[in-house]
C-alpha cells in the first residue's frame, strides 16, 4: 500500500482515480497471535498501531464484532483537550494532546485535527478561583492555559448570554491547543497505519469466551473460531462487564448511555469549543456547520445505545441558558453511546486482573480525546507487562487501596458524577 502524497494524488487524478487501493486489508483470523486486541474502536486500533510501531510486536490481531469504528468511536463529539487537574491524569491527557498534534504526519492520514481552542466558562468568583487553579495545574504538566476575563470571552464569542441573571458569564479558562478531530478519520488512520505494520484487522468477529490455561488467559473463542494468543487486551468500551463475565470477573463499572446531538448546518459561528460552567452543556461546530453538543450521562444502567428525554431536556435547558440563539435551531440528530462508568469517573489501563489479560476500560464520558495516549500507554503496558508512568495511576485496584482519581470529588457512584 502506497503512502498518500501530492504525487499519489496527481498520479491517480491522471489515471481516472482507478489506482487507489483499500486503506487496510480485511484480514481473516490466524489460529494464533502474540497479542489479540478485543475491540476495533479508536483505542483498540491505536493500541495495535503503537504495539507494532513502538514495540516491534507485529503479530497482532484486532477483533471487532461489527465493523471498525461502529461503536463509540463513531458516536462521540470529537473534542480533544487536556484541561485536567490532578497529577494522576493531567500528564496523561497532555501526552494525548501532543500525540494528536503529530498524528497526521505520523499516520500519513488527514484526521482533520483542528486546534480551535476550548473555553470553560465560569460564572462566579469561586469558580474563577477553581479554574485559575486548574490552569496552573495544566501549566505545571506542560500544557497551555490562559484565564480570560469577561471582555476577552465576549470578543471571541459575542453570541453568548453574558448578562443571564442566574448564570452571568464572568470569564473563562482557555486552552488554545485544544479543539476537535474527525472521529472516523482517526479510526481509519489508525487502521491503515496498523495494517501497514502487519496487524490483522478482523471484522465481524465477536468474542464469545476465553481459552484458559489454569488461571491464565491464552486466547479467545470467537464467532470465527478459537484464536490463541500470548496476551489478550480488552478495549471494548461499554461492553467490558459483558465480555469479562465468562471469566467470573466483577469490575467497578456500570454501563450508561451518553447522548449527543447535532443541529442543522449554520455558517461559521462557534470559534472553538465552549463549555457551560454551571450545568452540563458543551458545544462546538462541525466542519459541515452543524452545532455538536451534549451533556450528562442518562444516569442509570443502560445497554440501549439510545437515550431518554429527560437528558435531552436538561441539555437543551443548559444550552438556552448560555447560548439563547440555539432556541431557533432545529436539532437534526441525536445519538447515544455506551460508556462504562467507573466509580470515580477515571479510566482503567492495567495489567490483569488475570495472567495474560490486559484491561483498557472505564473511559466514562471522555474516551475520544484519550485515543492516542490510551493506545500508546496500553501498548506499553501489554508489551512490557507493567504500566507506563503516564498510566500508573489508572490501576484497577485503586478502589481497594484508596488511590482513586476523583477529579470531580462527588462520590463513589456513577449516578453522582
Amino acid at each position, binding site marked *: 500500500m502506497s503512502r498518500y502524497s501530492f504525487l499519489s494524488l496527481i498520479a491517480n487524478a491522471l489515471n481516472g482515480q482507478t489506482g487507489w487501493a483499500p486503506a487496510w486489508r480485511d484480514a481473516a483470523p490466524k489460529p494464533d497471535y502474540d497479542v489479540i486486541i478485543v475491540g476495533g474502536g479508536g483505542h483498540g486500533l491505536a493500541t495495535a498501531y503503537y504495539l507494532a510501531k513502538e514495540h516491534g510486536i507485529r503479530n497482532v490481531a484486532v477483533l471487532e464484532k461489527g465493523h471498525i469504528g461502529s461503536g463509540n468511536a463513531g458516536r462521540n463529539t470529537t473534542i480533544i483537550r487536556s484541561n485536567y487537574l490532578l497529577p494522576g491524569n493531567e500528564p496523561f491527557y497532555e501526552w494525548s494532546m501532543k500525540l494528536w498534534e503529530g498524528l497526521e504526519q505520523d499516520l500519513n492520514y488527514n484526521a482533520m485535527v483542528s486546534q480551535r481552542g476550548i473555553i470553560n466558562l465560569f460564572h462566579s468568583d469561586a469558580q474563577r478561583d477553581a479554574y485559575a487553579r486548574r490552569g496552573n495545574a495544566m501549566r505545571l504538566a506542560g500544557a497551555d492555559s490562559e484565564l480570560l476575563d469577561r471582555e476577552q470571552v465576549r470578543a471571541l464569542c459575542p453570541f453568548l448570554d453574558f448578562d443571564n441573571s442566574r448564570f452571568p458569564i464572568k470569564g473563562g479558562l482557555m486552552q488554545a491547543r485544544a479543539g476537535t478531530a474527525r472521529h472516523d478519520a482517526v479510526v481509519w488512520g489508525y487502521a491503515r497505519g496498523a495494517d501497514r505494520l502487519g496487524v490483522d484487522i478482523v471484522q465481524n468477529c465477536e468474542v464469545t469466551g476465553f481459552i484458559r490455561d489454569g488461571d491464565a488467559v491464552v486466547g479467545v473463542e470467537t464467532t470465527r473460531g478459537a484464536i490463541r494468543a500470548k496476551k489478550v487486551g480488552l478495549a471494548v468500551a461499554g461492553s467490558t*462487564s*459483558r465480555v469479562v463475565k465468562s471469566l467470573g470477573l466483577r*469490575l467497578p*463499572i456500570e454501563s450508561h448511555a451518553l447522548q449527543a446531538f447535532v443541529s442543522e448546518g449554520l455558517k461559521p459561528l462557534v470559534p472553538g469549543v465552549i463549555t457551560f460552567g454551571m450545568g452540563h452543556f458543551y458545544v462546538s461546530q462541525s466542519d459541515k456547520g452543524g452545532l455538536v453538543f451534549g451533556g450528562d450521562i442518562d444516569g442509570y444502567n443502560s445497554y440501549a445505545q439510545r437515550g431518554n428525554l*429527560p437528558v435531552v431536556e436538561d441539555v437543551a435547558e443548559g444550552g438556552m441558558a448560555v447560548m439563547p440563539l440555539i432556541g431557533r435551531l432545529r436539532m437534526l440528530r441525536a445519538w447515544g453511546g455506551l460508556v462504562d462508568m467507573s466509580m470515580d469517573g477515571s479510566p482503567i489501563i492495567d495489567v490483569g486482573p488475570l495472567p495474560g489479560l490486559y484491561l483498557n476500560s472505564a473511559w466514562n464520558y471522555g474516551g475520544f480525546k484519550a485515543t492516542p495516549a490510551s493506545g500508546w500507554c496500553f501498548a506499553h503496558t501489554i508489551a512490557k507487562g507493567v504500566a507506563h508512568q503516564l498510566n500508573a495511576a489508572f490501576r484497577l485496584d485503586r478502589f*481497594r487501596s484508596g488511590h482513586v482519581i476523583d477529579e470531580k470529588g462527588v462520590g463513589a457512584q456513577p*449516578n453522582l458524577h
Partner: protein
Amino acid sequence: MRITCPYCGTRSSHEFAYLGDATPTRPSPDTPDVASTFHAYVYERDNPAGPLDELWYHTAGCRRWLKVARDTRTHEILAVAFARKDETSLPEGME
C-alpha cells in the same frame, strides 16, 4: 421512560432519582475478610445486559424508595415494588 409507582401511579422517570443496582447487601462489619467484602459491596457490580433490580427514589412524588426491575437493553420496566419489605400495601384509607 415511565415508571409505575405503586403509590402514585404511572409517572415520568423525570420524577425519580436513581441509586443503582439493588442487589448488593451491606455486609456485617464482623465478617472475617471485611475489607474485601466491603470493597465488593461498594464498588464491584455485575452490570448485566438484561433484567436488573435497581433502586429508584420517587423524589417528586411520594418520596418512597422503589425496587424496579428493568431491562437495561430496552428500558422495559418489568416490575415495581416498595423497597422496604414491610411496605407492601397502601396505608389505610388509600386506594
